[in-house]
């Protein structure tokens, strides 16, 4: 059974953090198909957050097809992400390394690199939606 934690200062909303932590656990192989996620009651008893937050997160995961809720019993994992392991993306990782080198040689410091990346990431996401 995994355990959630909340980073109050991260700027990411609590329910997003839960979703991310579930996905992360799936990716790392900590959760397998059939494993049960912590009950809403257990999560809120540990984190002292609103139960609706947890419900929202579990619902989003359900929409993404990763988990399924069984009423009265709990929420269980139905798919994994660990098939999509990081090692399968070796070429992507190489490209990213090369780009980072280029950015550093161009004189960008860490913050500018992050800002540049985030900006491009967001606008590319918006383009996809549009």
């Amino acid at each position, binding site marked *: 059974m995994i355990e959630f934690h909340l980073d*109050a200062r991260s700027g990411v909303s609590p329910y997003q953090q839960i979703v991310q932590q579930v996905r992360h656990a799936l990716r790392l192989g900590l959760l397998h198909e059939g494993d049960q996620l912590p009950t809403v*009651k257990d999560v*809120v*008893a540990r*984190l*002292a*957050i*609103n*139960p*609706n937050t947890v419900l929202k997160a579990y619902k989003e995961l359900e929409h993404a097809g990763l988990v399924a809720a069984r009423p009265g019993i709990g929420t269980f994992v139905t798919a994994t992400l660990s098939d999509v392991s990081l090692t399968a993306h070796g070429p992507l990782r190489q490209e990213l390394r090369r780009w980072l080198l280029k950015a550093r040689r161009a004189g960008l410091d860490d913050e500018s690199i992050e800002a540049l990346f985030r900006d491009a990431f967001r606008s590319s996401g918006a383009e996809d939606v549009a």
Partner: protein
Amino acid sequence: MTDLMTASGLGKRYGRRWALADCTLRVPQGRVAGLVGPNGAGKTTLLHMAVGLEKPTTGTLEVLGGRPRDDAGQIGRVGFLAQDTPVYSRLSVADHLRMGAWTNPNWDAGLAARRIGELGLPPGQRAGKMSGGQRAQLALTVAMAKRPEVLILDEPVASLDPLARREFLQLLMATIAEDKLSVMLSSHLVADLERVCDYIIVLASSRVQVAGEVDALLATHWRLTGPRRDPRTLPADFDVIEESHTDVQTTLVARCDGPVHDPAWTVGELSLEDLVLAYMRRARGGGLASGRGAGDGDTGNGDGGNGEGGNGDSGSRGLRVLR
């Protein structure tokens, strides 16, 4: 489903001072509603009226569809935790539970005993000899074990140390996860409320400054920064809550239903705390005088005048209710 709380023009006067004025609210059930505001803003007054410990001077108030009055049915549906958690100092923990059993028809003795056990409160300990945190836990257990439909808590964690505060909120959240309880709690610390509330009411200068679902509020309030300019040049659907200018820069906290198109503004999200503070600062600037109905988006600096009402509300002054 009946609302958790409905208030219309609610007001309470002590002598010549209005502790609460012109309060209009509709809080849906199934929420954890946070009531936030500076001390003396009227939070305790509102909560006391909700549980029948104070009589309104003007207006109406309904909790779970019933008017708070000296009626066993109404009293039984609402659990209350008063500020500074008064307990009978000469009675023990077990005595308090017995008191709950004797005076509440729906008393869940098993739940009470379980909670006391989980909390590690010694049953024979006199309430007067316990720490503030323990007293709060005891009072919360008594309020919960009577199985109310709504729990009303007046600054329950104000005098607790950080650990006691966290444990209190953990207990509270675990209970509402189990029982689908509605909660209204007041605090003058926003950080606590940010974790647990999904509905927020900001009370300042004895008036409701803003009330609504937290998600909806955060989705419609922005921080806009940009080169110095007059906020009156903003489109009409912008409602400026707070503005500050330097010689080169203008920063605004504004409410806007749609997206911000003007590229001159850098748009940032607000935390709940920032939003609450903006409204509180605006209230303090203008005080109780809401006689000045402002023009569009013109709140001016230090002018507490309120714009016309927001989304289809009842139109009473000093109110912004969002769905």
